[in-house]
């Protein structure tokens, strides 16, 4: 049995497989399929200060080997999170990572301060990259704002601080460094690529917001490239995300330089995708007689 345990800063993951924000709810809905405590970690849907209704319908467009979403960070806000969702999350025996979104630096700081109080929140993932919210986008696409936000949150949040990067930038390495400089403990990438779908028959954009976030296997080559570039630019751990459908995809991200991965859109197509990604990595290690998954990280 090869070792699957990896570390992301102070976080000990029993295996390198987490689920990506916005594709796993708050973990509960997958309980029917498997014991989600088997995962290395669960990243929740974004939590913001106030409740958000998100965007208008339609919010989804299927694309070739991918999908666009324009959910727009719909969530019930931090109060509801604390009183309703958090008690449920406490029943899950693995790392709970809360994805945090905000309109302003103050919003982010407020939510992170509250989350800092919660024992069973093991880390936060700052979503500075969601392309659906105008303000959120700005933080992730300029180095000074990314640094400033990270510094502000770092002051109030004392556990593992992961910052999730937007791929919609000229240089992912520069943003990665900016966030490291701000005091992040780890990076996760990529969030969705900004894309668009058009219904030729109706001569309208498919999404109510015209543009939305592209995810799925279509973006895997871009994600691998960015993980490769970012992990070479910083010395903090990088979590790889983007189009991972199985264990082999996950191994590719580890080889590119990721210390762990997140499975996103795949959860929709195969509810057992994250679980099977763990066994897929294990099979790979056995097949190649590698004793420790850490040996794969960055080993191109």
């Amino acid at each position: 049995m090869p070792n699957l345990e990896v570390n992301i800063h102070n976080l000990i993951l029993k295996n390198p497989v987490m689920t990506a924000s916005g594709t796993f709810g708050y973990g509960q809905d997958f309980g029917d399929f498997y014991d989600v405590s088997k995962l290395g970690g669960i990243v929740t849907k974004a939590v913001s200060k106030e409740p958000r209704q998100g965007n208008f319908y339609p919010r989804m467009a299927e694309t070739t080997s991918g999908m666009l979403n324009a959910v727009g960070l719909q969530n019930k806000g931090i109060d509801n999170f604390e009183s309703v969702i958090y008690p449920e999350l406490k029943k899950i025996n693995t790392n709970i990572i809360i994805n945090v979104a905000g309109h302003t630096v103050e919003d982010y700081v407020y939510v992170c301060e509250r989350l800092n109080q919660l024992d069973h929140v093991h880390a936060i993932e700052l979503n500075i990259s969601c392309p659906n919210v105008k303000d959120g986008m700005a933080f992730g696409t300029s180095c000074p704002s990314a640094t400033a936000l990270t510094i502000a949150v770092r002051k109030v949040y004392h556990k593992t601080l992961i910052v999730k990067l937007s791929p919609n930038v000229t240089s992912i390495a520069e943003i990665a460094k900016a966030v490291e400089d701000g005091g992040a403990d780890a990076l996760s990438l990529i969030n969705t690529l900004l894309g668009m779908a058009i219904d030729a028959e109706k001569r309208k954009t498919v999404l109510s917001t015209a543009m939305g976030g592209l995810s799925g296997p279509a973006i895997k080559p871009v994600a691998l490239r960015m993980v490769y570039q970012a992990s070479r630019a910083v010395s903090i751990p990088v979590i790889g995300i983007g189009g991972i459908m199985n264990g082999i995809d996950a191994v590719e991200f580890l080889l590119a330089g990721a210390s762990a991965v997140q499975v996103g859109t795949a959860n929709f197509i195969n509810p057992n995708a994250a679980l099977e990604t763990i066994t897929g990595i294990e099979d790979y290690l056995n097949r190649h007689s590698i004793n420790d998954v850490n040996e794969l990280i960055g080993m191109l």
Partner: protein
Amino acid sequence: MNYPVKHLKMKNLPMAKVTHDLQLIENRQLNPAYHLLIFKSSVAIPEVFPGQFAELLTPDSAATFLRRPFSIYNADYQLNTIQFIVKIVGNGTKKLCQLSTGAIVNIIYPLGKGFSISEGKSLIVGGGVGIAPMYLLSKWLTTNNREFDILLGGRTEADIINVKEFSEYGELDITTENGKLGQKGLITTHPWLKDPGSVYSRIYTCGPEAMMRAVARIAIASQISCEVSLENTMACGFGVCLCCVVATDKGNLCVCTDGPVFNINNLKGWD
């Protein structure tokens, strides 16, 4: 007429969902646009309530990436079979309807909240492929000793399918816009929908949105209850992606988990 024995219960609430492979045992083309697909499961199929749906994954197709949602048309707990009525509208439905007997299709089900039991006599109004959830509903109402009539409508006679199966359960009438079958005109012009309040205490409807909205307006005017089964673009089908929302009096709710069946009273913009 094989009742699904488990349908004696009146409560219609989401069960634990499962995912497994099914084998296609019959692909019956009803007409050029509609197919009845019968799948067999090697494990016991879960209890399914009328109005609930499933997410099907077409094997290895370049044309579709996501699963596709389909209402459960019929389920047989003895034979472990599950049936769908599929109308070909795009790549996914085409591919599904082209499958040969023996093909393996993965399913996630049962999903969503189905119809609720009516108290007095009810009217089922199904338009086109919107009849799909109505067959289980008819069975269930019958099993629970409820009275109901069935009104099926379509643009042409090709949209009226499986009439014989339905008529085993209740009094049935038909409308087509071209008048080739049943009464000519929109389904909403049928006499049963003239003053439904005098006969029925509830309408169940599924079909094109414009039709459901017209039916809803009639129900409101007649001050009777009305349940609609909505569609939406779905990525997951089980409440995690938040892609399938509809505006309700409780804010944006997911059609896949809070629906697909809604009472029109709870929907915004449906009055």
